[in-house]
C-alpha cells in the first residue's frame, strides 16, 4: 500500500460541515424569491401580464427555477439516504420471502434502493436467481419509478401535499397488488429460456464499504451532478408544455376532454401516457397545469402514473429476459391498477 498518497483533490470534512448549512440557507433564500422574481421578469417584457402569452411566460419563469431548486434538493437528500441501501443488500433482505408481506416490503425497497433502468436486466436476473419470487421482483421494479422521491417531492412542491399523499398511497398499493397478482399467475414459464435455465452458483460477496457521513454527502452531490445534469432538458420541455396549457388552453375544452364527466378520458390518458417517455421531473409541471385548468384528478393521476411507471424503453430492455407475452401481461396488470385508481378518484370527487 504505497499508493494511497496519490494526489486526489478532496475537500476537507470541515468544509462540508460548513458548506451544508450555507448551501441550505442560499437554497431557502432563493426559494422564497421565486414569485417576486417571476413577476419582475414578466414586468420587464413588452407583454400584458394577463394576456395568454403573459400567463404562459409567468408560469415558465416561475416554474423553471422552482423545479430546478426542488429537484436539486430532492436528489441530494435521496442520494444521501440511498447510500445506506444497495441492490445487494435488498436482495439479501428479499431472498426467500414467499410470505404475503414480501410484496409491500419489495415495493418499499424499490423506492429506497438506488438502481438505474439501464441495469434492470442484471438486477432482474440477480433477484430471480437468488430465489426471490417473480411477483416480488415485479413489485420492486414497479415501485422504483412509480413512487420515486423525485416525482413525490415535485408533486408536493408544485401541486400540494394532499395530492402527493394520494399519489404515494395509490402508487404503493398498485405496485404491491400488481406484484401479488403477477405472482399468483405463475409466470415463470414465460421468462426467456436462458433465464429459466440459468443456474447461478454462489456469487462473490462484495466487501462491505465503510462510508463516513461526508462520503454520503459526496454521494448526494455526485447524484445531483449526474441526475440534474441529465434531466434538466426534460424539465424545460415539460414546463414549456405546462406553460402553453396554462396560458392558452381554455378551461371549457379541458373540462370536456379531461373532466370527470368524460368516462373515456381515463383509458385515453393511459393510452396516451404509456408510450410517452419522460421522467417524473418532466411530467409534473404538465400535471400542475392540467389540474390548474380543471382536469379531473383521477384522469390526471392515471396519465401521470402511466407516463412514469410504464415506459417503452424499459420494456425493450426487459425484452432480454421476459418474453413478449410476459411483458404484455405485466403492462396489462399495471395498466388495470392505474385505470382503477383513475376511475376511483373521478368517481369520489
Amino acid at each position: 500500500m504505497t499508493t494511497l498518497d496519490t494526489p486526489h483533490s478532496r475537500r476537507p470534512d470541515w468544509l462540508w460541515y460548513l458548506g451544508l448549512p450555507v448551501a441550505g440557507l442560499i437554497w431557502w433564500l432563493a426559494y422564497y424569491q421565486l414569485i417576486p422574481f417571476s413577476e419582475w421578469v414578466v414586468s420587464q417584457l413588452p407583454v400584458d401580464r394577463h394576456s395568454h402569452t403573459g400567463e404562459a411566460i409567468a408560469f415558465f419563469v416561475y416554474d423553471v427555477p422552482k423545479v430546478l431548486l426542488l429537484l436539486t434538493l430532492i436528489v441530494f437528500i435521496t442520494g444521501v439516504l440511498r447510500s445506506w441501501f444497495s441492490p445487494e443488500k435488498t436482495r439479501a433482505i428479499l431472498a426467500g420471502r414467499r410470505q404475503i408481506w414480501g410484496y409491500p416490503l419489495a415495493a418499499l425497497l424499490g423506492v429506497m434502493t438506488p438502481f438505474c433502468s439501464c441495469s434492470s436486466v442484471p438486477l432482474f436476473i440477480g433477484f430471480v436467481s437468488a430465489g426471490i419470487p417473480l411477483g416480488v421482483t415485479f413489485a420492486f421494479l414497479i415501485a422504483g419509478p412509480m413512487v420515486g422521491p423525485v416525482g413525490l417531492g415535485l408533486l408536493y412542491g408544485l401541486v400540494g401535499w394532499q395530492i402527493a399523499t394520494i399519489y404515494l398511497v395509490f402508487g404503493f398499493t398498485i405496485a404491491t397488488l400488481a406484484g401479488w397478482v403477477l405472482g399468483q399467475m405463475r409466470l415463470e414459464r414465460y421468462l426467456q429460456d436462458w433465464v429459466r435455465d440459468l443456474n447461478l452458483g454462489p456469487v462473490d460477496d462484495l466487501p462491505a464499504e465503510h462510508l463516513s457521513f461526508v462520503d454520503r454527502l459526496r454521494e448526494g452531490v455526485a447524484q445531483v451532478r449526474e441526475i440534474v445534469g441529465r434531466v434538466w432538458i426534460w424539465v424545460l420541455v415539460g414546463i414549456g408544455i405546462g406553460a402553453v396549457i396554462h396560458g392558452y388552453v381554455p378551461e371549457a375544452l379541458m373540462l370536456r376532454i379531461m373532466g370527470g364527466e368524460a368516462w373515456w378520458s381515463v383509458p385515453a390518458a393511459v393510452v396516451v401516457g404509456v408510450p410517452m417517455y419522460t421522467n417524473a421531473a418532466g411530467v409534473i409541471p404538465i400535471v400542475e397545469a392540467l389540474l390548474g385548468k380543471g382536469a379531473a384528478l383521477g384522469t390526471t393521476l392515471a396519465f401521470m402514473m402511466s407516463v412514469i411507471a410504464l415506459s417503452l424503453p424499459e420494456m425493450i430492455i426487459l425484452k432480454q429476459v421476459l418474453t413478449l407475452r410476459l411483458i404484455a401481461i405485466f403492462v396489462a396488470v399495471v395498466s388495470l391498477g392505474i385505470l382503477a385508481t383513475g376511475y376511483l378518484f373521478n368517481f369520489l370527487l
Partner: protein
Amino acid sequence: MKTVKVYGPGCARCATTEKMVKDAAVRLGIAVTVEKVTDAKSIAMAGVMSTPGLSVDGKLVHAGGLPDAAKLDAWLSA
C-alpha cells in the same frame, strides 16, 4: 499483468470507469488489461446487479456507481 473487467451495458459511467482504471494503471506504472463486459447475461453471471461493476483478476471488488479513486488505486496495486 492484472486483468480488470468493467461490467456495464455501455452507460456513461461505465466508460468513465474504464478510463479511470486505465489512467490509474498508467499513473501507478502497473500493467493492466482492461476488458469491457457489456452483455447483460455475462454481467448478471458475474454477480453484478448495479453497474458499473469492477473485478480485478476475477475477484469482484465494486458494483454501482463510479469507484472511489483512492480505492481503485489500492485494488490495482494490491
